[in-house]
């Protein structure tokens, strides 16, 4: 690079500037809607219509404090968190067991079974939502957190099994042989050796499951009728209807609903990106 650039000093100066300009413009495109939401939440409705672009004057914190002081918001945060964690626990637990078998055992029909699971990748909720709803009604799981947790776990299996199998395969067979010689049962090997070694992969699939569950809208929308069970996305959508005439308050609600996801993103960014890239490039 450097030898190449030495001949063209002008470009050396212009290029980074051009590069930065382009990147900053894209950055503004990405940030502006969010900034509008954050600032809009600090305005009252009158300011929003007379002064939609500028800074709030005066700053009105009451939209935010009202939301934070209302029980509904926290109930939804709790519901979303609980459902996300339970989903993740079940998805990862069940998938790890299956992935272990797919990775380390040879048996008839293994590839067929694996393909069946992998095919699930193609079918998120939208395709199955209606029959799923009827099925959940049949099981009496409507208006029950399990009615969201179990289907989410089931639909999360495909990706999780694929990623974990990939990882389990990469662990050398010698380790297993050594463990077996030491008297480890297959489950013992799985539990005491494989899982601890697979921590990075487990973190990755967990993060994917959490994000998927956290953002899921369609399923909780149709499963939960009781407002006490609503998750954040459903809550946001209902709040928009409820306070349809109070734009500033909706913006405040939306911004606050973003916070947990963004906080989680800033902590788990590496795992999320890692998971998405391995999940999609090797699936």
């Amino acid at each position, binding site marked *: 690079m450097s030898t190449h650039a030495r001949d063209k000093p002008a470009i050396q100066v212009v290029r980074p500037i051009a590069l930065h300009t382009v990147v900053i413009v894209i950055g503004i495109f990405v940030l502006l809607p969010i900034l509008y939401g954050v600032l809009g939440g600090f305005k009252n409705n009158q300011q929003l219509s007379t002064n939609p672009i500028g800074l709030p004057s005066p700053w009105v914190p009451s939209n935010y404090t009202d939301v934070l002081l209302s029980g509904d918001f926290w109930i939804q945060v709790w519901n979303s968190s609980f459902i996300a964690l339970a989903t993740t626990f079940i998805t990862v637990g069940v998938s790890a067991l299956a992935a272990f078998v797919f990775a380390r055992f040879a048996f008839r029909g293994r590839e067929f079974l694996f393909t069946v699971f992998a095919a699930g990748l193609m079918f998120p909720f939208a395709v199955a*939502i209606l029959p799923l709803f009827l099925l959940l009604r049949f099981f009496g799981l409507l208006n029950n957190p399990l009615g969201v947790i179990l289907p989410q776990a089931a639909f999360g299996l495909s990706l999780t099994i694929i990623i974990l199998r990939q990882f389990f395969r990469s662990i050398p067979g010698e380790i297993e042989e050594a463990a077996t010689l030491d008297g480890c049962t297959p489950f013992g090997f799985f539990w005491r050796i494989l899982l601890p070694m697979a921590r990075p992969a487990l973190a990755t699939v967990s993060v994917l499951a959490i994000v998927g569950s956290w953002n899921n809208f369609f399923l909780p929308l149709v499963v939960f009728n009781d407002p006490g069970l609503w998750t*954040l996305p459903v809550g946001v959508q209902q709040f928009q209807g409820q306070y349809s005439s109070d734009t500033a308050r909706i913006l405040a609600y939306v911004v606050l609903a973003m916070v947990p996801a963004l906080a989680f993103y800033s902590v788990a960014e590496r795992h999320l990106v890692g998971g998405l890239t391995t999940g999609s490039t090797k699936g």
Partner: protein
Amino acid sequence: MTIVLFILPALVLFMLLVLAPIALAAYSSFFKWNGFGLFPTNFIGLDNFTRLLEDEVFLGDLWRGLLLIIFSLVIQLPLALAIALLLNQKMRGRAFYRLLFFMPYVLSEVITAVLFTMILSPERGLANELLAFVGLESLESTFLSEPSTVMYSLMIVMTWKYFGFHMILYLAGRQSIPNELTEAAQIDGATPWRVFWHVTLPLLGPTIRITIFLSVIGTIQLFDLVYVLTGGGPVHASETMGVTMYEFGFKRFQVGYASAISVVMFLLSLVFAIGYQRFVMRRDTEGAITNMRAKR
């Protein structure tokens, strides 16, 4: 024994909640059913499907889906690729920008849609105010309120939400290409364009094929964003198969007909996935398998 016990939980969950619903949808699609009671009883054969083929809204869904796919392939993915290659350059704040651009992907579709309904509101939305502010009044629009502009508005929102995701995949793909290869080409005197066209792009092939796959599957199932943003309107101008299915299944109590839409969505995904795997991604999977063998 171990095998059975280890796989059983996954298998039960998967069969009960993934395969059974699909089977149930297939079954109900042959019935006229308002959804009440345990099972449908009024068998009508393929009537739901023939009705689908005459339903202008549904045919429109297919057309709009195709439009969105074309948009993804022609604009969104190339844009994401360009930005990825840009961010692959050495520059200050690269990590920050990467973090920033990917951020919208983490937000839920609902939050995105609610935010953008406000931004694209014709009366006092940010978009029109900004256009006026920079002196582009002529571009002011009613965005989501007009059948002629709603799809473009939807595409803008989709770009905002998803380009970062594709960008991240391209970045990962690009970083797995050894720099020596592109540098060697440069030293040989190839122009940056030729390097991109003859070296980078072909080596990014597997990643590109994956992102196309994800884009198409995602478009077939698009629901959340459209439902909250426009409800499929105005007058069906932004409706997707998912929205039509919801409309009939949950609002009009024509569960049999809605099931037929589910079945078509399923078949489209399946046929596309199988065809794509077979004819487009075959090379990649083979490569992956041989790689794995080589590693062992």
